[in-house]
């Protein structure tokens, strides 16, 4: 399959700074577009059907303009800073959280060349920058001059520290199998792999690293502070946790970064375990076509995985704080370590 009208576009030579700015703009558009799609699809529609309510049906045909209405509502609300708050830290905190989120998108590949920076240490970078959001959450909790915000911030920090470890350890299994931290290498290994000589679907690591995949998804659920891990923002106990004092556009920033992080982690999980942007090599789709098919494939996988996150969110009740810590330290981490040991032994044996 060739797209001849694309040839002049593909042959275009761009300077490094032009290429980078173009990639950053497209990356931002993709991140925000997918976030909006996920919010509309799951938070408005999916959940309304699950809970039998007709809320988002009024704005536009079939409620399709609900998202615009919500954004407009938040933008025009008053931006309040509590009088006893630490104004500078209070103002910077949402930006720290949002930056941490957008930095994850930098290394997620969406096609053979469609990646902002193809870092050799790609997945390691993702784990490092995603851990920076905790700083923003602690800043927000402390600077708000509000007990509930501080308790929420501390709960969030304790939870995010506890669940970062199983997440890192779950990824190690994939890294051992591929022998590289680079996300393009991980995609290529799955596209060209085969299962006992059968190459019909490549070798997505969700099969060989199923334990790692499950641990990763549970850890993502906790990192996103979605139910059943939503103690940091538990409404019945803490009003809204660390962002209780935020209003207007600053609250909108937290809201966007929560769902953008969900999309980012879902895209990372799809890249690590579900084959990423690639389709199995045996299907014979040319590299040129993959420039266009790749982004669609990874977006679809990511949106479906975010659906799983929301499905769990609206199905399970909240954990208790001690149950949360016990699950991480006594359940997931030993299991992840065992997974690493078995993977390493098999890697050496074969």
């Amino acid at each position, binding site marked *: 399959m060739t797209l001849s009208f694309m040839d002049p576009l593909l042959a275009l030579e761009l300077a490094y700074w032009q290429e980078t700015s173009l990639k950053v703009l497209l990356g931002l558009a993709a991140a925000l577009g997918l976030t909006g799609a996920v919010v509309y699809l799951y938070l408005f529609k999916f959940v309304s059907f699950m809970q039998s309510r007709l809320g988002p049906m009024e704005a536009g045909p079939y409620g399709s303009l609900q998202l615009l209405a919500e954004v407009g509502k938040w933008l025009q609300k008053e931006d309040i800073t509590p009088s006893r708050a630490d104004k500078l*830290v209070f103002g910077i905190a949402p930006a720290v959280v949002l930056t941490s989120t957008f930095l994850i998108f930098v290394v997620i590949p969406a096609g053979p060349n469609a990646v902002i920076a193809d870092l*050799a240490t790609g997945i*390691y970078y993702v784990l490092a920058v995603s*851990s920076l959001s905790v*700083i923003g959450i*602690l800043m927000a*909790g402390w600077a708000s001059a509000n007990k509930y915000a501080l308790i929420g911030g501390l709960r969030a*920090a304790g939870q995010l*520290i506890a669940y970062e470890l199983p997440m890192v350890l779950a990824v190690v299994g994939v890294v051992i199998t591929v022998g590289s*931290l680079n996300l393009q290498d991980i995609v290529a290994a799955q596209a060209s792999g085969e299962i006992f000589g059968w190459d019909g679907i490549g070798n997505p690591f969700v099969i060989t690293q199923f334990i790692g995949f499950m641990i990763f998804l549970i850890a993502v659920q906790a990192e996103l502070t979605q139910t059943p891990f939503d103690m940091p923002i538990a409404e019945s106990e803490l009003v809204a946790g660390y962002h209780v004092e935020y209003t207007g556009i600053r609250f909108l920033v937290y809201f966007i970064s929560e769902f953008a992080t969900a999309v980012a982690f879902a895209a990372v999980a799809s890249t690590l375990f579900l084959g990423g942007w690639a389709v199995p090599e045996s299907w014979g789709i040319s590299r040129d076509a993959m420039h266009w098919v790749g982004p669609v494939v990874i977006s679809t996988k990511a949106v479906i995985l975010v659906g799983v996150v929301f499905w769990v969110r609206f199905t399970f009740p909240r954990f208790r704080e001690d149950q949360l810590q016990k699950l991480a330290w006594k359940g997931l981490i030993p299991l992840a370590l065992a997974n690493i040991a078995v993977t390493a032994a098999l890697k050496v044996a074969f």
Partner: protein
Amino acid sequence: MIAALAPLSFLAQSATGNSFDVPANVVFYIVAAFMVFAAIRVVTTDNIVHAALWLILVLSGVGLNFLLLQAEFVAITQILVYLGAIVVLFLFGIMLTRAPLGRADDLDNNMRPIGVAVGLLLTAVIAFALIRTFGNDSLTFEAYAGSQAVAGNNRTTALANEIFGPQLIPFEVLSVLLTAALIGAIVLARRD
């Protein structure tokens, strides 16, 4: 006139595309100046949480310096360990115990001269050790060639081979040291 423009010669060099070391040096001095400023704010600020937040900027400057030295893996480790874990633990500990908003008057004391003396002594020792070890060694910078990932991966592989090969025993001894510190902390904190 020509001599005055010499510091700008990197512009001409980067246009020809092979040398990266002059821009890298310029960025180093900017980052270094910023780190010194942030480090001074860490010890002079009158709020303990602000001190921890300034420390974040100092430590991310260290990460940027590792990036300038093309040590991608070490730079990311710096971010993951120091910013993502250690500073977060600082903030967590401070906020769990005592973290008043606004000025705190009990953060300062009259030990400044001793502090300055210790700081200068430490600087002298580190500078001596670095100059003695590295002298005039220089690093060859590789210009962007479209395959950074391959080169970076080779460097990360080389580092891993070194740690888990010839340096395995020191590496394991360090792990034992950390475990001992951890057990010590648990023993001290236990009430029963």
